[in-house]
């Protein structure tokens, strides 16, 4: 495998569905962070065939991992400190997501009110259903499916 180098402190997001690394890169707003980011696309995986990997060199607790949980809670998150894995974090579907997806209901107040946060809440964890906080419209189409 391509060797990108070990992190001193930061995150390794492994088992990202192949082709989705850039989506996560943008949703985590990594473009706005002044840190080293390695994006590995189409890496070989015994489990998945092909996968993407993100390595982010930054202080831990910098990233909002809830967003990653929403995109795909099967992603593995390794948290690195002093060049060793100090935690393997299980991702869960976040109870609430802010400004990640937009409500598509043309009757929703978010369609006209300026500056309003787009907030969705987890209405059904089993069925992975999110609803708009304002109009309760179901979010159709999970990001990673």
């Amino acid at each position, binding site marked *: 495998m391509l060797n990108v180098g070990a992190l001193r402190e930061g995150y390794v997001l492994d088992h990202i569905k192949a082709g989705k690394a850039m989506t996560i890169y943008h949703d985590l707003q990594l473009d706005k962070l002044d840190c080293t980011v390695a994006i590995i696309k189409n890496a070989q995986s015994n489990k998945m065939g092909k996968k993407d990997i993100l390595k982010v060199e930054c202080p831990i607790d910098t990233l909002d991992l809830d967003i990653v949980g929403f995109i795909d809670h099967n992603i593995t998150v390794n948290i690195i400190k002093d060049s060793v894995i100090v935690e393997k974090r299980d991702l869960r579907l976040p109870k609430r997501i802010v400004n990640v997806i937009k409500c598509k209901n043309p009757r*929703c107040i978010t369609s006209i009110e300026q500056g309003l946060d787009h907030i969705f809440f987890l209405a059904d964890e089993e069925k992975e259903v999110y609803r708009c906080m304002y109009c309760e419209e179901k979010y159709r189409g999970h990001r990673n499916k």
Partner: protein
Amino acid sequence: MRHLMSPLDFSVEELDKLLDLATDIGKDPKKYAHVCDDKRLATCFYEPSTRTRLSFEAAMMNLGGKVLGFSSADSSSAAKGESVADTIRVVSCYADICAMRHPKEGAPLVASMASSIPVINAGDGGHQHPTQTLTDLLTIRSLKGRLDHITIGLCGDLKFGRTVHSLIEALVRYAGVRFILISPEELRIPSYIREDVLNRNQVPFEEVERLEDAMPELDILYMTRVQRERFFNEEDYIRMKDFYILDKTKMELAKKDMFVLHPLPRVNEISVEVDEDPRAAYFRQAQYGVYVRMALILTLLEVELPC
């Protein structure tokens, strides 16, 4: 400070207390005639609604309070592009409580988040209309003496009819309630009501198309109007609008102690000949609506009640 966005904002116990207060108001309105002498209600109606707005205004006036507001977006600063959040911040300086109707779903919630006074959702698009639900619950409880162990038929536009959705969500919290959902195929209840509300709560229900088949079983028949403004396509509206017409012949099939409710305004779905039937309760329902809004205003303003 509390707001009212959905009928489910109140627990069953809180709802019972509110309906008890509304019932007491109905029995002795004079007792409450001056409890809000120093209070003001703002009615912020961004779309026309004669009935709900007048009901709120009558409720506040019956309590001795004053009313101010606007009755369409054109006559408000929304026409100049002001946000809902900014409008309520200003209205909070003029009034003690606000009833808001808005064509956009969730607008009253946005208002409540920016408001320093209680906000009542007086209808937001096809989403919620909680004070109609409170009215319906008070009417059923007053006429039948209970909210549990009833068979209720909901007839007409069950797809877009927000009053129906809210009423189902409120009634599933009571034991022994059974629904008969009467609608044409195209206007059946949305799947989230069927799955997330009825099935999840294991509430018995059946979906039928013929009103006549359901009539003999009902304790309450809740008729609804097919609303033109909920359709994007005029042809669909015209095809659906006269699908059900309740008349004397159909009323003969019903129990003697069944009652007919309707959120009003009625168009063709209830023949005027039914109005004379003592089981026609839709105009009494409008009166209950004033009582329950009075109770709601008192509850949200936390006004000290007369003994």
